[in-house]
């Protein structure tokens, strides 16, 4: 299985897209109506000052159904997942969850995934974790590995073939 199966728009991904669509419509129909645009979410947003993310506007755009505009915009990838908007919204609207759904949709539509996400996903597919063990340096510049430190071997999927089967199902079956 390749990374393409899990991320891009292949025949089998149509079902994934449908499901994310359902998630977005649910958020749109059941949640965005409660938003009264008080912008409390934006006032505490960690990504607002540096990157101009405005979670209240994300909800407003969702309400108007402007999904395509959002998944084509890089701004959805500036959220730091601090969960403050979800925590503080007086109406229990969770802009951060809308952003996750939008990013999932962008990926399912075959949009380019920014930054390191592809590498992390590739690593999960091959060894089960987001990165292999790094060479770790001490503050007096010595390199140490786990066994020198008496630490046990890293826990990873024992049977990689079967592990990949699990992930493959996720990509292919209706998820």
């Amino acid at each position, binding site marked *: 299985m390749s990374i393409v199966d*899990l991320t891009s728009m292949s025949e089998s991904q149509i079902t994934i897209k449908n499901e994310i669509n359902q998630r977005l419509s649910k958020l749109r129909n059941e949640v965005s109506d409660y938003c009264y645009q008080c912008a409390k979410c934006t006032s505490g947003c*960690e990504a607002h000052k*540096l*990157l101009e993310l405005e979670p209240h506007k994300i909800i407003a755009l969702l309400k108007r159904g402007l999904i395509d505009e959002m998944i084509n915009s890089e701004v959805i990838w500036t959220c730091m997942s601090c969960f*403050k908007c979800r*925590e503080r919204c007086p109406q229990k609207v969770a802009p951060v969850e809308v952003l996750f759904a939008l990013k999932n949709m962008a990926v399912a539509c075959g949009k380019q995934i920014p930054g390191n996400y592809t590498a992390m996903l590739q690593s999960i597919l091959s060894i089960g974790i987001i990165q292999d063990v790094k060479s770790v340096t001490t*503050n007096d510049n010595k390199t140490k590995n786990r066994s020198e430190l008496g630490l046990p071997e890293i826990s990873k999927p*024992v*049977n990689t073939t079967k592990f990949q089967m699990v992930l493959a199902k*996720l990509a292919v079956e209706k998820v």
Partner: protein
Amino acid sequence: MKKYALYPGCVIPTEQYAYEISIREIFPLLDIKLIDLKNFSCCGEPMKSVNQMLTISLSARNIAIAEAENLDIFAPCPMCHLAMSECKRILDSDEKTKERVNSFLADENLKYEGKSQIVSIIDVLYDIVGLQKISDLVKKPLNNVKVAVHYGCHLIRPSEIGRSDNSENPQKIEEILKVLGAKPAYYPEKLDCCGGLLTSNLPETALTKTGQKLQAVQQQGFDAFVDVCPWCHRQYDSKQTKAGETVATKLEVPVFYLTQLIGLAFGINKEKLGLEFNLSPVDKLKIG
């Protein structure tokens, strides 16, 4: 003696050794036994932006591995703890999704049932072990060092999922530090995010977030900064020099994992607490 499966996740065992070493050192003293299991994978949280179903399935898979051994799970990384707690919340209330996830897991003969509890570092230290027991073990009190506490976002939010402390005014780490003889103090930036999750696509901005918070901490005269998350620690400790460059400041803030400070107060020597891996100027602080 309580036992837990230790779920180390990805970041701790591949690079943040100081956290793992100090946890393994102090837990036996607190009468907590940690069991190492094979076969774990990523918790899935770092992939939530890519495919949320992948997150849920990976978390369920890890929980199922511990369930097969009848063990509750201790997840020291708050991000893993959040992913698994959210997964549990979803699957325990939604039979259909649970069945679907279990149909994925069947290939590896695994099954999510929902019987294992997931506990965080603060659940263990504050709620399960408790202040009294920690206090009884203190041999070298921390000389009133003035400490800035960083909880990290995932440990305390979203509270709807059940997190380890109050989301707007968390105090459990401060209470632990007081028992150790340190002087935690409030600072207005306490709840600010480290920015670490932007490292994958906007690394400069991530470092700016880190630098801004540490700069504020330094200006307010703190002796030390304490955290409990490997992602946050990587920002504040491992990358402190670079973070300083983004705010044009020479940062010299000693950054510790809480478990390292606990170990020092227990009189454990610093080699055994992985202090050689802290890249911030921890030697500045004459403690332990």
